[in-house]
């Protein structure tokens, strides 16, 4: 049994984000982090490893520096890492990304008692699409928004969170699950983990490695193979200055309340 976790390195959009004059993101000026929901997927896999001794493989698609992220996840306890990286893969939308990752997962090999885990969504695009699309390409059943899970033999019982409650869903392995932050609290790297992570196997899959898979077709990967294109990107205009009221006292509050009434806002 093994668990393959798909992870992504993302710009930290919670901090200061710099936008170039042409409306693109100034990535060079930004910190990168491991996508937060992916950390919950890694933690869920490592918990299962603690219980069953299964192997945990972390996979990412991205430029070579993403290797550092894979080493960090190995220091947390992942056994193997795979970096999927090639010029041909650049500019992929979610459809094309799922083609490539599905091909990489096939290369790793998915057996009967295996599980694929992803984070619900990445904070740079917030699409939540790549997980279900990988599942479709691999013909695996999916459960998304997993907030609790329990494995009994070959069956996983998941609490799938909805806006107005939840569903309890059971699914047999092999399957793909997408994880949300309510699932667990990710662990830290250990000193021993950091010491050992450099020795763990880390492979790179390039276009050459995967090109014989039917999913890796130049008509379905990369910028040219992506069904969606960016038509325009832009920044919203700054709003005109509002009215600043002086002092945090009773007079100020009375003044504000009467203005709101006067303007029929309340």
């Amino acid at each position: 049994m093994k668990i393959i976790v798909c992870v992504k390195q993302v710009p930290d959009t919670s901090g200061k984000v710099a936008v170039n004059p042409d409306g693109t993101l100034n990535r060079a000026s930004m910190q990168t982090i491991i996508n937060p929901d992916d950390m919950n997927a890694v933690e869920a896999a490592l918990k299962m490893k603690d219980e069953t001794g299964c192997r945990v493989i972390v996979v990412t698609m991205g430029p070579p520096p993403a290797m550092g992220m894979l080493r960090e996840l190995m220091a947390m306890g992942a056994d193997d890492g795979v970096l999927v990286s090639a010029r041909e893969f650049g500019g992929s939308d979610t459809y094309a990304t799922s083609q490539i990752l599905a091909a990489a997962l096939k290369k790793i090999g998915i057996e009967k008692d295996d599980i694929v885990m992803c984070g619900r969504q990445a904070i740079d695009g917030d699409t939540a699409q790549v997980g279900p699309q990988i599942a479709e390409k691999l013909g695996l059943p999916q459960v998304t928004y997993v907030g609790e899970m329990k494995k009994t033999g070959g069956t996983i019982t998941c609490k799938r969170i909805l806006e107005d409650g939840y569903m309890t869903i059971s699914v047999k392995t092999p399957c793909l699950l997408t994880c949300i932050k309510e699932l667990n609290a990710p662990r830290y790297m250990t000193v021993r983990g950091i010491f050992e992570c450099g020795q763990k196997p880390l492979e790179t899959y390039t276009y050459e490695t995967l090109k014989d898979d039917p999913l890796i077709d130049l008509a379905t990967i990369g910028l040219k193979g992506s069904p969606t294109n960016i038509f325009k990107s832009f920044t919203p205009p700054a709003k005109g200055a509002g009215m600043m009221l002086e002092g945090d006292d009773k007079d100020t509050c009375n003044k504000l309340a009467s203005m709101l009434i006067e303007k029929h806002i309340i």
Partner: protein
Amino acid sequence: MATFNNTDLAAFKDVWVYCEQRQGKLMPTDFELISEGRKLADELGVKLCGLLLGDDVDGMAKELGGYGADKIYVCDSPLMKNYTTDAYAKVICDAVTNLKPEVLLFGATNIGRDLGPRCAARLHTGLCADCTHLDVDVANYVEFLRGASTLDVDNMKWDTEDRNLKMTRPAFGGHLMATIICPRFRPAMATVRPGVLKKNAFDKAKADACEIVKLSVSLSEADIHTTVEEVVKAAKKMVDLIGAEFIVSVGRGIAKDVEGGIKLAEALAEELGGVVGGSRVTIDSGWLSADHQVGQTGKTVRPKVYIALGISGAIQHKAGMQDSECIIVVNKNKDAPLFEIADYGIVGDLFKVAPLLTEAIRAAKAAK
């Protein structure tokens, strides 16, 4: 290289809306999508059709007509009593393959965002996630950009014949907006953020005129690989941020007295007849439950009045509330970025201001 059977764009027409129902009840976002779909179908000069899946759901179909649908396709099967990705994706993909719509919209609910990507991957077409604005007509799109962007639209070249669905969404936590198109494949698919698009007024005559068409469903138990053990509605009523006219949100500023800060916000919200929301930190710290979260990773709201207490204004929060009609910001730090989009700002301690403002509003209402 692979070839695909959905590249003959002229073979696809009509705008479709997937109408989500849970336990026999339509979702509020269905009405928003039908209303928006009406606009798009008119711009394209085609029909607007709803797609309704479930077990014994045809009774709900007419109501959708009242918001602008010409036709509702109903797919009924006892195997679709509860939502499963496998059953619903199969039935939708079969219908799309047979009837060839050019646009297919889903609500970006937890179910729409499960189903949409699965269908798009199977149909080999593009899907734009969590859209907040849709256009077909280029002139309308240019007008939208004039107000919503800093682009110099008058000095840009526009192809007025362009019939692509232009799907606009926030990216990078709201720092950028992107308009996405799917030029080579059909249908063009989008999930649309609930609570953002306006719904039409219900029209009984239109509901009566709406055509209901039952589609035959080819589905067997062997198609479904998950088992729904139970569906549970939250016992505690979730806070309805999207429907609220007044929202009082709290942020890091309540840290020194979390319970007290939330109580003050609740009192103010109650006086206004509104609800309490929170920024990401209040959810991540466990001060408020996740249903209270306003922002790019939470809910997008546009109430009549949004009062932010002790929220500095990370872009990811702004993305979820900047379209509110009136924004009132209370923060000790006069440089808090949220003041930039405030209609009214008070530099001060929320623990002092909130109770005084509650009192002032009560008095001002009484005097009216």
